[in-house]
């Protein structure tokens, strides 16, 4: 669709020409009318400029490739082909919602060999997900900006913005040390495994407590028990992905829940734990716990594609979900609705299934002061105390980055205090 528009300045020039012509008429002489001559020249030039051909195809390339991390800044190079005389050409790119244009860095449209023209600008990857560039509107603006002719040039492109990664945010967590089910431990040292494997001869350095005295007496040598290595700690991250979470206030708590889930899963996988994830909505989605690079990719893909789902009571969603998932994992429930009346029931279901539950609520960074954070934390704390759910000890030793209570007490994490700028590359 080619569009021709005229600016207000064309009206001004028209009025001026009228004034000069009126003066010429009033004085019955041609001399004042020569003031029209440069203006007529500008008008002729404007029409000629606007009639120059517009580009036919365009293509984009991103400096960092088509996969970006959230909060990345990248340069976008726009090449328009078939652009004769690119000097009065400028482009208006339809930037998708998840990318944010950084305005101070526009470059001039310049010739780039042949009939091509290039321009570049910088964008900030603001929001995880898959974003589609659609059309470029190429404009020709004439002398004095009098006339403007523009055309839409198709230039489809898909950019994937990955959720923030714990490694880039320099966030580390220590998973709970592997121990038997339900045995509280104060030490973070890796203990011995708890599953018997075989007997073998005692060697210097073995623990005295592992010596199998009966077998030693029988064989007249010192024999110790050998245990299998531990299973890695397993976590299931339940993310409240209901629409009410997304619409809570006018701020995007859904996105912040996902950010928190992404950072947590990334950090836990990095610490060699096994992590699974559940997006709780009317159509819940599951990824069973696993470890390693492929699991990280699976969780990343799930987070990229996730959208707020339909509404249902969170206790019913949890109840429907937990039966399908391995029990021997610890639950992390991320929800922004700490005032949800059925949340305590949901936590009790999780407690019955998994033993340990941690409830995390993304913070409210728009509120000055800590009032709302404190209220949310108090609510979560009261909730957990009432249900006597044990908190995961030592999962978030960020020290000053997040609010942390002593490990014996419930922990609630507020994402608002997470320093997003302190990232390392």
């Amino acid at each position, binding site marked *: 669709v080619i569009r021709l528009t005229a600016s207000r300045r064309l009206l001004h020039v*028209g009025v001026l020409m009228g004034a000069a012509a009126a003066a010429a008429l009033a004085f019955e002489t041609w001399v004042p009318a020569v003031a029209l001559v440069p203006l007529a020249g500008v008008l002729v030039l404007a029409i000629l400029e606007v009639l120059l051909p517009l580009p036919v195809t365009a293509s984009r390339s991103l400096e960092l490739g088509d996969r970006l991390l959230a909060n990345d800044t990248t340069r976008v190079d726009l090449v328009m082909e078939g652009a004769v005389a690119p000097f009065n050409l400028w482009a208006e790119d339809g930037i998708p919602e998840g990318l944010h244009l950084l305005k101070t860095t526009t470059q001039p449209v310049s010739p780039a060999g042949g009939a091509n023209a290039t321009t570049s600008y910088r964008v900030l990857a603001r929001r995880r997900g898959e974003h589609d560039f659609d059309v470029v509107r190429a404009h020709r603006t004439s002398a004095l900006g009098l006339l403007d002719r523009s055309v839409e040039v198709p230039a489809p492109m898909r950019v994937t913005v990955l959720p923030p990664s714990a490694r880039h945010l320099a966030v580390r967590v220590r998973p709970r040390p592997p121990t038997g089910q339900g045995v509280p431990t104060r030490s973070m040292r890796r203990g011995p495994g708890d599953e018997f494997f075989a007997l073998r001869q005692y060697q210097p350095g073995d623990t005295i407590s592992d010596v199998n005295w009966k077998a030693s007496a029988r064989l007249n040598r010192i024999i110790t028990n050998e245990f299998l290595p531990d299973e890695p700690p397993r976590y299931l991250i339940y993310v409240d992905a209901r629409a009410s979470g997304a619409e809570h206030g006018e701020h995007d708590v859904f996105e912040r829940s996902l950010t928190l889930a992404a950072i947590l899963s990334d950090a836990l996988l990095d610490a060699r734990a096994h992590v699974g994830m559940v997006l709780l909505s009317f159509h819940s989605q599951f990824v069973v716990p696993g470890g390693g690079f492929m699991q990280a990719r699976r969780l990343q893909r799930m987070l990229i594609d996730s959208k707020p789902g339909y509404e249902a009571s969170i206790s019913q969603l949890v109840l429907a979900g937990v039966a399908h998932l391995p029990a021997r994992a610890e639950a992390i429930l991320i929800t922004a609705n700490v005032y949800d009346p059925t949340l305590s029931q949901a936590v009790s279901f999780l407690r019955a299934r998994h033993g340990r539950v941690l409830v995390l609520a993304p913070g409210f960074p728009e509120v000055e002061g800590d009032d709302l954070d404190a209220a949310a934390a108090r609510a979560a704390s009261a909730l957990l105390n009432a249900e006597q759910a044990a908190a995961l000890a030592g999962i978030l030793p960020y020290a000053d980055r997040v609010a942390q209570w002593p490990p014996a007490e419930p922990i609630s994490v507020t994402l608002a205090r997470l320093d997003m700028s302190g990232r390392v590359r």
Partner: protein
Amino acid sequence: MTQDEDPWLARSLRAGTGLLFYGSLMMADLVPDGRLDAPWLLGAVGLLIPVATVALWGHRTRPKNEAAWWILGLLAVVGLTAIGQVPLMAGLLVGFFLVHDLQLTPSVMLGGAMAALLIQPGYDWLDARQAEAWLVAFGMLLATAAAILERDRLAWRDGRPVSPMWTGGRVAFVALWTLAIVQYREQIEAGRVFALFGAEVTGFAGQMLLLAIILAALVLAGYLFRTRKPPEQAPA
């Protein structure tokens, strides 16, 4: 390097444009035998007053779309025109628009220069000759060039840079156009176009035809202006 990062770049560009516009104001004070008529410095005084106010009081002197500013502006325009100081008025107006980077500056430049050139108290246009035509055309040419430069500078400042070669090319086109038209006025024989429609240039029918052309141009401009203003920048 952008104009926001380097204030002296913007200042020197503004000074250049202002100087060009002052040249067009001086054309109004020139008389055909080459000597400058009396108050030729008043245009420069008008251009420098806003610079002084900005240096003293800064951003507060920026004209706004408020009743007080409209009344003050109209008083200045009407009063200075009434006492015959049109170049001072044009310089003052353009100076205020220029130092505050207002979008309307090119239009005000064209209008101010035309007012200064055509409203000359005590001047009898009936005696005007080819020499006066040259002065008017050259003054308008300087103002148009200043307006083109200022418009491209504003476009650059708002993030849409215009290459200097293109700006220069357009100024050169308008300059050549002006010189050619004024030089070959006799040969072009605009009167023949009027005669084609059965009207004589100096007669009543010719005047009515000219008036009709003006009205048609205004209607056309209004028709084109009816469309929406194009967005200046890609949406954020």
